[in-house]
């Protein structure tokens, strides 16, 4: 059907050409070269089907920072996804227009090009499907895609940028979703001290950092694995429960009892800059997270087997906690967070 319409459209174009002069504008919009950093997994499929382009990314970045995406023009994506916090924020739970409080902690937007599943409960697999959610959610931007398109159409700059980014197609919903995803694909954090040590670029761990790396490999890496520092699995690790009765973790998506209060393992990259921690910001500091894991977590039928086998704990000495925190600080990418 789509092809038929396209053919008819082309036919119509040719017909029009007979009667009058038609100027076909061609848009030059080079694809950007994205590289998979040393040791990182492959890009996810959507990076290939929605390849970041010069103008697509520029448009996505502009939209990401545009408050017109919200009903009352007060917040943009960047209001909660703040660069200096690895595109997360400092609130326990997300804060939308009119100070409405959401359900969960704002996830950092980094290394999205390598993620296979998004958000704490994995309700999104294709990043292009995500931007609509905050736009329409009551406690986020509380707008609608047609309302947003209406506002953008009043701005000639956008018309030009959409045309450049998507070959003259004008302002469309897909253009909004695809360009924001393209911009997010370019947010790659792979220049931390850890990366430089790994790549033998002349940096070395301090003694505490090196000891922390050892503890990390002994006690953390089974979940925080790969260069993304997450295996992207969903686990119940017995953190204090969100009292909001909307919350059920992964089972909100799958409907399975076994997924109750399971959440996606968070990446540890730039973790020193994304406090507070936990699905609704239960912990103010990394120390508090480690204290909790060491002291013992909440019992649950589906508690992660690794914790179950260890009396619901990951025992850590005070020295080990210091060392782990020192190591986690080596995952901060000052270039990425802009300071």
């Amino acid at each position, binding site marked *: 059907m789509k092809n038929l319409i396209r053919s008819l459209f082309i036919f119509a174009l040719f017909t029009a050409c007979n009667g009058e002069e038609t100027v076909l504008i061609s848009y030059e919009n080079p694809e950007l070269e994205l590289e998979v950093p040393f040791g990182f997994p492959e890009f996810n499929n959507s990076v290939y089907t929605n390849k970041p382009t010069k103008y697509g990314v520029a448009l996505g970045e502009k939209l990401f920072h545009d408050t017109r995406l919200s009903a009352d023009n007060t917040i943009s994506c960047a209001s909660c996804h703040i660069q200096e916090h690895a595109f997360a924020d400092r609130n326990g739970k997300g804060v939308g227009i009119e100070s409405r409080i959401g359900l969960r902690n704002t996830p950092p937007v980094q290394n999205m090009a390598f993620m296979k599943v998004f958000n704490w409960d994995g309700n999104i*697999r294709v990043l292009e*499907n995500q931007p*609509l959610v905050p736009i*329409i959610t009551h406690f986020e931007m509380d707008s*609608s895609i*047609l309302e947003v398109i209406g506002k953008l159409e009043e701005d000639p700059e956008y018309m030009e940028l959409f045309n450049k980014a998507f070959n003259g197609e004008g302002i469309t*919903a897909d253009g909004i979703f695809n360009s924001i995803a393209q911009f997010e694909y370019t947010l790659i954090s792979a220049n931390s001290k850890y990366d430089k040590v790994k790549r033998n670029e002349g940096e070395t761990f301090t003694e505490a950092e090196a000891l922390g790396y050892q503890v990390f490999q002994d006690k953390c890496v089974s979940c925080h694995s790969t260069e993304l520092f997450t295996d992207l699995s969903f686990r119940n690790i017995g953190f204090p429960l969100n009292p909001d009765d909307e919350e059920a973790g992964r*089972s909100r998506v799958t409907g399975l009892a076994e997924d109750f209060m399971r959440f996606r393992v968070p990446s540890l990259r730039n973790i020193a800059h994304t406090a507070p921690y936990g699905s609704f910001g239960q912990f103010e500091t990394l120390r508090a997270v480690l204290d909790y894991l060491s002291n013992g977590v909440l019992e649950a039928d589906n508690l992660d087997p690794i914790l179950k086998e260890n009396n619901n704990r990951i025992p850590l000495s005070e020295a080990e906690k210091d060392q782990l925190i020192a190591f986690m600080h080596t995952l901060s990418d000052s270039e990425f967070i802009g300071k």
Partner: protein
Amino acid sequence: MKTQTIKNFKKYLLLPAIALAFVSCSDDDVPVANNVTLEFNNTFQGETIVLGDAASTEATTNTSAEGQIHHFSELKYVISNIRLIKENGTEIPYNVNNLDKGATVVDQSKAETLKYVLNAIPTDDYNQIIFGLGVKTSLNDLDQVSFPEFYAATGENDTEMHWEWGTGYRFTKIEGFYDTDNKALSFHSGSTLEGTKDDESTYVPGFDAYREITLVFPAMAKVGERSPKIVIEADFDYLLSGKTNTILLDDKNATPSAHTSVSMSQYVDNIGGDGSSDSTGMFSISHVEN
């Protein structure tokens, strides 16, 4: 430019139909098509439901198989993907891929939503109806650009049938109270299913509450000179006391977390059928008026 072309294209598609209409009309006086009205009667065991808040004395109450008294303050569900079946088995689909023209929200608090008129159904005798309770996966993506009217109707503040985080519609929304102390009862259904099962990069596994209901008419609906009315009863006694599941409400399954756990499927199978052996759920045809 593009939309204009599509519109014109649709116009051309209509031409033969219009031509055909004129040809047929010249033969006799029976119109080629007429309307069919679907009327939804939402009941507890046959008694039309009156909604009410926690302390209401007017609200219709019902007692479940487990002996729990309950009543509703809100009752809404989506009907879509409607097909009328002729005696010879031919299906006449009614705008099944257009939510603006072929889907509706039945809302017990709004009398006008209890009747849904199917326009221009071809003249013939019909003996069955099939419809979806909810929205099928391929259309369940909150696409405001394609279906602005249905998006608006489901998104209104007093309707709240958008399931934003799942980028789909709520298929059923019931709010109410149970037990003599009127504890909150809240049931929302929908689908989180997305993508293709064979393609892991797109597939979001999920529970799909969409159900297709098949109802056989007790008497033929004769469309032509007359425009029949089909009265469909939805007996919400089935919600807790269904053919497959008897549900005892407690603090774990009676509030919105119900839609997050396995219990959601029990409610859904009760009202919408289990998708295999039971294809009627809580629905039945009261009568057909020709």
